[in-house]
């Protein structure tokens, strides 16, 4: 597991919001390595810096201090457009609130990342259909998000995240708005993508049940990593 170089590496990353008296230290020096093919669950109390860390891993935010290396590329040195291109080509996102485009069909939502990749219409449509099929939504292609249940919406969001076959899938509380049955379905999908397609998954969760699907659990507290242990799933 430690032979290959890591896919991601955080080196003493700090993130401070505001300055002076009002300064809020969300991350106080986080160092973390994640290998290709890993499945990491991030846990910790509210306000401990989990989302802040995910935003940095997702190249949407920059550390105040420290370094973030994505496949040996120093993300901190990239421009806004370069970071966007990194997201476009290598990352997939799943959000707690689904974040689908409303009044836009499930199929078109899944097609969206392919549009920005410049994939032609026919190929785009086919790939989006396949992705919806893998999340078990065949027949729902032309439904609008408001016509779908929460579980179905999250599966559309998952299809959108994996339709590009990303290297890394980032999910911030993907089951936060779902009941336990729907949550397990989502976790089964994530596990499957991790196992079968080798997609690296980093997921924030508050629930130990969900974290148990992962190969590794990282605990945050007050902007620092408190514990980091393997679950025994990854053998």
């Amino acid at each position, binding site marked *: 597991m430690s032979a290959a170089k890591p896919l991601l590496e955080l080196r003493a990353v700090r993130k401070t919001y505001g300055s002076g008296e009002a300064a809020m230290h969300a991350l106080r020096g986080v160092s973390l390595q994640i290998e290709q093919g890993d499945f990491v669950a991030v846990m910790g109390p509210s306000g401990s810096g989990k989302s802040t860390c995910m*935003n940095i891993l*997702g190249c*949407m*935010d920059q550390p105040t201090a420290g370094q973030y290396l994505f496949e040996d590329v120093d993300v901190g040195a990239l421009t*806004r*457009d370069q970071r*966007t*291109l990194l*997201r*476009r*080509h290598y990352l997939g*996102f799943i*959000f707690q609130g689904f*974040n*689908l*485009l409303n*009044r836009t069909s499930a199929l078109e939502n899944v097609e*969206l*990342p392919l*549009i*920005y*990749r*410049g994939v032609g219409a026919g190929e785009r449509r086919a790939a989006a259909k396949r992705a919806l099929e893998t999340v078990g939504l065949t027949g729902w292609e032309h439904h609008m998000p408001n016509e779908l249940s929460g579980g179905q919406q999250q599966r559309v969001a998952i299809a*959108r995240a994996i339709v590009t076959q990303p290297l890394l899938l980032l999910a911030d509380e993907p089951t936060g708005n779902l009941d336990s049955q729907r949550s397990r379905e989502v976790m089964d999908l994530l596990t499957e993508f991790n196992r079968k397609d080798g997609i690296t998954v980093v997921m924030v969760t508050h629930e130990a049940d969900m974290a148990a699907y992962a190969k590794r659990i990282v605990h945050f507290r007050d902007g620092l990593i408190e514990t980091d242990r393997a679950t025994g799933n990854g053998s």
Partner: protein
Amino acid sequence: MIGVALKLAFRELQRNLMRSILTMLGIIIGVAAVIVLVTLGSGATQQVTQQIASLGSNLLMITGGKRMGPGQSASAPAFQLADAEAIIREVPEIQGVAPQASASSTAIVADQNWGSTVTGSTADFFTVNNRQIAEGRVFTASEARAGAAVCVIGETVREKLFGRQSPLEARIRLQKLSCEVIGLLAAKGQSSMGTDQDDLVVVPLRTFQRRIAGNNDVGMIQVSAGDGADTETVRLALQRLLRARRHISAGEDDNFNVMDMKEIANMLSGTTRMMTGLLSAVAAVSLLVGGIGIMNIMLVSVTERTREIGIRLAIGALEREIMLQFLVEAVVLSSTGGLIGIVLALAASKLLAALLSVPWILHLPVMAEAFAFSAAVGIIFGYVPARKAARMDPIEALRHE
């Protein structure tokens, strides 16, 4: 990319149809106004030019009064018949001279009456003004000299007083004068100023002076210069003669005007040009207001769709791609407005041209310009909202509700 952006823009326009139409209204009105005005303006100008050409460019008009400025004049002594006779005698290269005096009067035949204009003039009136006789004849020199009770009427007067019957030999009463109709003028239609050129009764000048006006004044003298004569030379000769006859000393201004038709034509087309210019300015303001409306609605739209923008940015849309999407949307909005404006203007100008009886001239370059202008309005006023969208922070935008 631009294809996808166009599709999205039209979808967005459809989704907020009412709002989009209201937003486009400024552009629609602006574009429609410009095109209607240019179309009618050039139609009117063309008509004036043609009419003046048909009158003959060798016509000069002498009216009383000092020229104070455009359209203004101070009172001055009227002309006399003797002035007209002097012109015939003394100014070379002249074809006809028609001294005139007119008044509005009700023309009565049996139980029919019609308010028209009575003009007293000589037989030259008809040649100078290019009026053909449809039936009967014009008055003779002896009838003119004697002040006979005869008249020539226009087509409108005939229609109102006689219906379909021939008016010849009937008697018309004009105030205290009862006169016999000896001629009917061929119809000429509306003038460029919108007046009916067939609504007139012409009597000998002397008859008019004695029996209707009760004085010997002549209000206006029309002079037609001979073919090939230089109207400017004739104009100067007329001016010199009248100054002498009216005893105007060297330093003093004229108390009369000699205008040739060219000058009148220039004046008229100058007026239409000025009107077109003024109203175009109004149209430009309307386009500006329309542009501000578009900017406003685009800013609202960007705020409403913050979350959508956040999703797009997170998924991998570059700043310039978001920018393009919103710019295309603004341009689609404004140029659709432009197109609607053009279509409306075509319909409206066609209708108005028919109503005002001016020719309808299709101006393709103006339409192309108006369309380009409306699209440009979209780019200019869509820029700020589009930039606002493109510069959003994806994290903040995703958190927005």
